[in-house]
Each structure stands twice: as structure tokens, then as C-alpha cells.
């Protein structure tokens, strides 16, 4: 005769009060990949249905900014542009800076902006910031097209700039900037759910950050004693590589890109860990 022991049941999943710091469920994120696609599609649709002029506005902003920079930094302050014409020099900086800063500021408020959705339904929260950096590529593509037109003009008509094969690194540079803005953005968004004061810091922090990045100047023109600040910025390598590739100007050391990659991967990992820690309980504080 066998005794019937109480059947110990297997459980498929568990919801626990405490989760370990590194229990990041990337498999689950992968299961929700269709959601990522739909969110990007949503952004794409609202992007086209915005206004009559629609995407034209995305040309206006970099052109006006560039004109101001040309007047302010090139004509008045007479900052060096490494011997390249001012227009492609500034436009190159503005184009990639826009992508970075926009991705960063949007991912930084991801919890606040999506509280109504996050409060009603569960999905891996990581999908939301991911969709932001992917959607940002649409606007980037338009501004990049403008930049390419300018580069073509200065290369073939004017003959004053000389693109080289480093332009092939563009996708990698974009990936790095996406990862960096995602990492930083997630750290900020996680902290702002609890400490709301950080929101103020972020807005002008991004502005300050632009001046620590070679957007309106070239690294060569930075006095030696301050150069370490610029070099510590992981964006510096990216901007230098971009300019070197498309304009053939300035100095670019592939090693600095490697250092940037290292820092960015670390920031991204840190961002994911913090974000993952906060996402489960943020609804109570936001």
C-alpha cells in the first residue's frame, strides 16, 4: 500500500516583495518585442499627423540653430572650426546632439509621462524607454538628410571638405548615443520618481552638458588644462569620429571611441539595474 502524500504543486511564476538587484528578465523584454514595434509605429503615426507642415518643422529648428551658432561662435567669438566651413561644422554637431539630448530628456521623464499606462497594466517597463530611443531615429533621419545635402554640396560643389571611410561608423555612433541616452535617462527617470527636485537639475544639466561636448567648438581649440574635462566625456570620441568621417577635419583617435564604448556600456548596465529596481514600486510614489 502506498501512502498518498500531499501533492506539492509546482508554480510557474511568483510575485515577491523583494527582488534581487540583478533579476533582470531580458527574456520577457524579448517576448514583448511586438509592443516595441507598435509603440514606434504609434510615434510614427502621430509624427505624420501632427500639423500641416508636419516634419518640415524638423528642418527649421537645426537651420535656425545653425545660423545663430555661425553668427555667434564663428563670426563674433571667432572660435576655430579646424579649418572647415562653419556651416557643415556646426550642423554636424547640432544633428547628432539633437538626437542625444532629445532621447535623454524623453527617457528621463518616462515614468512621469507614462504613469497612466504603467498604473493600469504590466509589461516590461524597459520597453518604453527603448521605444523612445528608437522613435527618435525618425526625427534624426530627417535632420541627417539635411546634413547629408550640405555635406554633398561642400564636397562636390565647394570642394572644401573631404569625407572618408569613417562615415561607415555612423550606425555604431548612433548605437552608442542611443545606449548612452538610454542609460543616463533611465537613471534620471528612476531617481525623479522619488526625488522630484532632480527634474530641475536635468533641464539645465542637459544645457551644461552640451558645452562639455564638442558641439560648437573643436577639441583642438580647448586649452590644455581643461582638455581632460572634454576628454572624460564619452560623447567627445563620438563627435570627433563623426566630424572626422564627414568633414575630414580635426583629430580623431580610435582609442577614444573605445573608451567611450566602455563608459557607455557601464552606464547602460547601471541604468538598467536601477530602472529595474525602481519599476516595481514606482507607482506608489510618482
Amino acid at each position, binding site marked *: 500500500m502506498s501512502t498518498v502524500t500531499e501533492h506539492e504543486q509546482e508554480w510557474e511564476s511568483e510575485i515577491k516583495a523583494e527582488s534581487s538587484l540583478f533579476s533582470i528578465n531580458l527574456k520577457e523584454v524579448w517576448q514583448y518585442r511586438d509592443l516595441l514595434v507598435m509603440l514606434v509605429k504609434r510615434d510614427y503615426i502621430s509624427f505624420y499627423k501632427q500639423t500641416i507642415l508636419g516634419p518640415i518643422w524638423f528642418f527649421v529648428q537645426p537651420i535656425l540653430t545653425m545660423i545663430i551658432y555661425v553668427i555667434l561662435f564663428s563670426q563674433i567669438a571667432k572660435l576655430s572650426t579646424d579649418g572647415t566651413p562653419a556651416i557643415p561644422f556646426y550642423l554636424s554637431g547640432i544633428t547628432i546632439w539633437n538626437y542625444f539630448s532629445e532621447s535623454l530628456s524623453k527617457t528621463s521623464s518616462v515614468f512621469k509621462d507614462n504613469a497612466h499606462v504603467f498604473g493600469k*497594466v504590466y509589461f516590461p517597463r524597459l520597453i518604453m524607454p527603448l521605444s523612445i530611443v528608437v522613435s527618435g531615429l525618425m526625427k534624426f533621419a530627417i535632420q541627417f538628410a539635411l546634413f547629408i545635402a550640405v555635406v554633398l554640396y561642400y564636397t562636390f560643389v565647394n570642394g572644401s571638405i573631404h569625407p572618408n571611410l569613417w562615415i561607415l561608423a555612423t550606425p555604431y555612433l548612433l548605437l552608442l548615443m542611443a545606449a548612452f541616452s538610454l542609460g543616463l535617462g533611465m537613471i534620471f527617470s528612476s531617481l525623479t520618481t522619488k526625488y522630484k527636485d532632480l527634474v530641475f537639475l536635468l533641464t539645465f544639466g542637459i544645457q551644461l552638458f552640451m558645452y562639455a561636448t564638442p558641439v560648437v567648438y573643436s577639441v583642438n581649440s580647448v586649452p590644455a588644462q581643461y582638455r581632460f574635462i572634454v576628454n572624460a566625456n564619452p560623447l567627445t570620441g563620438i563627435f570627433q569620429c563623426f566630424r572626422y568621417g564627414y568633414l575630414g577635419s580635426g583629430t580623431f583617435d580610435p582609442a577614444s571611441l573605445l573608451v567611450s564604448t566602455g563608459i557607455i556600456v557601464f552606464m547602460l548596465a547601471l541604468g538598467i539595474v536601477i530602472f529595474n529596481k525602481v519599476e516595481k514600486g514606482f*507607482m506608489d510614489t510618482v
Partner: protein
Amino acid sequence: MKKLAIKAENISKQYRLGEVGTGTLSHDLNRFWYKLRGLEDPYLKIGDVNNRAVKGASDYVWSLRDINFEIEKGDAVGIIGRNGAGKSTLLKLLSKVTKPTTGNFKINGRIASLLEVGTGFNPEMTGRENIFLNGAILGMSRQEISRKLDEIIDFSGVERYIDTPVKRYSSGMYVRLAFAVAAHLESEILIVDEVLAVGDAEFQKKCLGKMGEVSKGEGRTVLFVSHNMGAIDTLCTKGILLETGKVVAMGDTREITSMYFNANNQEEGIFQIGRTDQNEAVAIEHVTLLNQNGTVTRNFEYRDSITIDIALDCHQEIEAPYIWMLVKSRRGPLFAATGMLDGFRPKSLKAGKNKVKCTFLNVPLLPGVYYIHMGIRSQDGLHLITQSKDVASFNIIGGIGNKGFNGSLADSLAEEMHSPLVPYQWEFENDGIYKFKI
């Protein structure tokens, strides 16, 4: 032994009241300091029972405290309790929208939760695109949605507008489409908050039908929160009664719903309701049931008169509101008294306390359990100025065999009917006419 779908072990949820912000950092640092020394979180020891009427001693409240329960696969469970009892918190925890402070849930099967219909709908997108977006948010794959697309569109009944942006939809169409997506989720466990309080009656019925199908036909587990006791009675096989964050009782739905009406009522026949929403212009404070002798009771006999005495609390003076009162059985509405039909209404309700009485005369209801559902509409009849809800329940008791009915056979059949009787007559060709008078 039946397989379990959900097991809750010592679930607690603590919330911090007031302005989150001031003192957050100091509390966090204090917590960290305790953790470093290997001590328990100091703020978990304090905290009041969640009773919104009483001012507590600390900023922390326990919305749920040490909840334990087991739900078997295929059960349809109604979660019942007054506002603030912790129903929504429980659903939120199960939906993983927020995490428990202590304890854990063990779960078998995929959970889909409907705390709201149409989460993430984008007004610029067409109905079809929104089906895909909303479905993806709810966890369906693109393939799964494509496969069910026709079924979803058919269920929603908005086929004609499916390629129109949803910003052009009426609110009813919007809800229909949203529910249609949700109803086609393929999950083993379905969690539904009171989302059926929207849409027209016909669609509500369709949704309730679909949910019944889900739990009975497909053997899925359903958790359902509603203030509609009738819906809970028909849909659910089991009930969980929550009160100030604790499980008071769990068991057969009918027992639990009647316990809910009895809970907090020292005197049978008085139902405490209270303000549910600060924005409501008028709140139903309590409802008292009386018979023709003026006795407070919830047990009546066939042909008794039932007086419903309602105490209202108004934020400000309300001119000529329409008050309506509906008597329901667990199967649905039976009869009503409504100012919208008869045109009777108070000239005004003054700011502060008001009394309204409604008497149903010689109520010809057969023995059983009945519910009273009421609501108040604005002067123009267009807006609900208090959320309509079940406010009381009463029993018709005692045999009817001795009241001109067909003896004990009538007694045994009457319980099944749950309906009122009206006068009628039979005509038998060789026998003559038989009149049933009440």
C-alpha cells in the same frame, strides 16, 4: 485535489499618506541605516489600519495586511468590500502594477488584467491600429492578434468605423472596441476591475456573458471586483470579503454577498454607504429599510410594503435632481421607481443632510434575495451626480402556501422564481375562467 491557480501568502501593502516628497530622503536614509546594521525596516512596524474616516496616528497605513488565500483553477472569484477595503490594491498587486510590501503570490498561468479598458489607446490611430497597440500592451503577440482580428472586430460591433481614427468615436464605441480586445486575451487567469460600469446596458450584458463564458466554458480563472452584487452573484462561484485590508470571509458567493450587506450593520436593515468619491455632488450616507409597521428590518413577507429611507449628504444645494431606485434579483432588474418616468422629484436638495423616502406598496415578490440599486441624476437628467450602486439587499421570507397559493408545492417552487407576480387569468375551454388576484 484541484490544482491551484493563485496562492497568496502573507501579502501586505503599506502606503505612505500625505505629500510624498518632504522627509522622503530622511526616511530612506534611516531605512538604509537600519539595513546596514541588519535590522528590520523601522517603518514596517508602524502604520494604521486603513480606515479613511478616522485620522490616524502615523503617515503610514496598511492597505492590505497579512492576506492569505488560495484560488483554484477554473474558479470565478468575486472580491467584495467597501471602498478602501483594499480590493483595488489587491488587484494591482496581482497585475504587477506595484509590488507587495511583504509576502508573495504564487501563480500558475499567464495573468491578464483589466484594471481599465483601452489602456494606451491613441486617438490619432484607427480602430484597427489601436487593436494591435492595445493588444500588444496587454501582452498579446502580433500573430495572436492577427489571428483573432475578425473575431474582435465582430464582437465590438464597430466594423464600419474600424479604419477611422478613434478620436472620432463616440465614448460607447470606444469602450466597445477596448473591451473587445480585452475579452479575447488568451490567458489562464483574468483579473477584472469594475470596468463594466461603462457602455450601454446591452453591451454590458454582452460583456458579462463573455466573462461567464470565459470562466465556465473555457475553465479559466477569473477574479472580479464589482459593486454590482447581482453581477457577482451570477458570474462568480466564490467570494472573498475584504474589510480594512483583511480577509473577513471567503466562500460561497451568496453567503459572502449577504455578509457584505450585513457587515458593519449592527442593526439589520440599516446599510452604511458613505461618501465614495470626494467629487460626488451628493453622497448616499445610509439606507434604512422599513416595513408597513415602521419596523426597521431586511426581512419582509410577500405583499409587505417596503420603505426605503435614504440619508443624503450634499456638497451644495442641488436643484430638482432625478432620483431612481431599482429592485433587482440576482438575475437582473425587476421593477423601478424613477423620477425620470413619473416626473416626481424634489424641488431641491439643500446643502448638507437630506432625507428621501420611497415606498413600494404591497410588493408581490416571491421569496428570495433581492437588491436595491439606486442613483441620482442632475436636473437635466444627463449626468449621474452620485455613482449608481447597490445600496441594500432584503429577503422575502416565509411560506406563501397559506396566502392563497397552491400549498407546499407553491412554497417549494417559489424560491426558484425570483420574480414579482402580476394579476392574470386563465381561461380553460370546458372549465371556465380562473382569476389570479394579488
